[in-house]
């Protein structure tokens, strides 16, 4: 019993170590191709529009509701303590711009576009299309990975800005309808307290998330093994691993930015 449990734990560790190694190799080769600068712009544009179009409706909707629920809770809590809803705009905007906008957008895009990337590249892998790229004189990292990574690095920050906005609008909507807070008060709560560095804090984190989600999805895709079942496994793994890493790295990125005074 114990022996077999230990064996499977050891096997798991080995597999994790091997995967980490492979992931590092892929990242290294990605960096090398980036430095070389021979970029497939057409592919990058195609990926940008795909990721953007795929993810925009769902990110806008989730952030609108996030803003709504934040306003609802803030209003209820401050009403409980002060008998009147206070600083709803401030709380909504700070929470969204610094944390929830970047993190939720990254997670939603991981589930939408990250999964799509893992599934597409996984299918290409198991049907030997990735091998075919080699034989036709190009490199899968150059042709597939880099365009998707660049697209993520451009589109995820944009989507985050949009979702910051829709989130704040969602908060405004609930403030007005539920608590009769005038729009002017809501906006004042925001602009009086918020500074550019707060926005920058959230915005910088999106680049970490974009890199993470893109590279994990790319890696899971190109390392797929074992037919249709393998494609399913890679897709799930891509989403689970990217979401987990986004949440974990969010803590460290925040700590780092705080230490650098960008809070």
């Amino acid at each position, binding site marked *: 019993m114990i022996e077999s449990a230990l064996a499977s734990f050891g096997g798991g560790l080995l597999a994790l170590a091997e995967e980490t190694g492979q992931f590092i190799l892929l990242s290294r080769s990605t960096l090398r191709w980036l430095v070389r600068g021979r970029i497939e712009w057409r592919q990058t544009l195609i990926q940008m529009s795909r990721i953007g179009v795929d993810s925009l409706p769902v990110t806008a909707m989730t952030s609108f509701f996030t803003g709504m629920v934040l306003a609802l809770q803030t209003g209820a809590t401050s009403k409980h303590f002060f008998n009147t809803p206070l600083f709803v705009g401030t709380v909504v905007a700070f929470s969204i711009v610094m944390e929830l906008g970047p993190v939720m957008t990254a997670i939603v895009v991981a589930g939408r576009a990250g999964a799509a990337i893992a599934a597409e590249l996984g299918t290409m892998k198991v049907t030997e299309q990735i091998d*075919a790229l*080699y034989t036709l004189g190009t490199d899968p990292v150059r042709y597939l990975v880099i365009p998707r990574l660049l697209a993520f690095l451009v589109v995820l920050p944009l989507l985050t800005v949009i979702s910051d906005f829709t989130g704040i609008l969602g908060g405004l909507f609930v403030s007005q309808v539920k608590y009769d807070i005038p729009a002017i008060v809501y906006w004042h709560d925001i602009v009086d307290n918020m500074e550019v560095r707060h926005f920058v804090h959230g915005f910088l984190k999106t680049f970490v998330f974009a890199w993470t989600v893109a590279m994990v999805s790319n890696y899971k895709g190109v390392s797929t093994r074992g037919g249709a079942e393998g494609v399913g496994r890679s897709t799930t793994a891509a989403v689970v691993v990217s979401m987990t890493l986004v949440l974990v790295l969010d803590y460290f990125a925040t700590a780092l930015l705080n230490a650098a005074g960008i809070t």
Partner: protein
Amino acid sequence: MIEAKGVVKSFGSRTILRGIDLRVETGETLVIIGGSGCGKSTFLKCVIGLHAPTSGTVAVDGIEVAKLQDEHDIADYRRRFGYLFQEGALFDSMTVAENIVFGLKYLTDIPRSKYRSIASECLALVGLKDVEDFKPSELSGGMKKRVALARSIAARPSYILYDEPTTGLDPIMSDVINDLILDLQKQLKITSIVVTHDMKAAYKVAGRIAMFHEGRVLQIGSPDEIRRSSDPRVRQFVDGSSQGPIKMKLKEFDAEGSQAHLASGGKS
């Protein structure tokens, strides 16, 4: 010239190739035959460098792909090859024409304006027309195979590795493809390796035929030598008989059990 010396390839604990020694002279067509799963595709992938041999070497014009480090050198090496994948491996997000000309951008400096006519020419060579704007998913199995063949010859490589070029084609179309392989070899002096199960095709296109068996080259010789081989295993294979030394071995392990299983009406 392609020269394989003692090529061994294992996947995990399973050893597929157990020491392949082969030499394909420049301008020659070597046909590889052998049972399903004996490692023919694996060998082709070792030649082009998609697999690294576990031990042994493959050298093409004296260059060993497994030893190359720089991505540019590897790309240069692969540039010389056309590779027909067994399952075609067409890019399913692209049209037929885009598939065929895909490599031209990376492998040649042919201007983009010529791409369309090159695609049509290559399609004509494999007996297809008016399918340029189809997606691979809209083609039949045999058509896919021929589009894949058109793609592997589009950049005029000096080596072509064909993995079962005629599988899934009707007999007439198979012969058209055999003629194409012969023409490419005669007119353009292309060096090629053809993996096939189709003995008629093998006799027609081969300079020499090599039979793989249990991870080794069992016999290599001219089509006539193979046709008149005295080795019972080669005889059995080229005659396509279920009776003989090869299947006997299978039977001991496998077929007998499943026949007993069938006889009992599938209840076990």
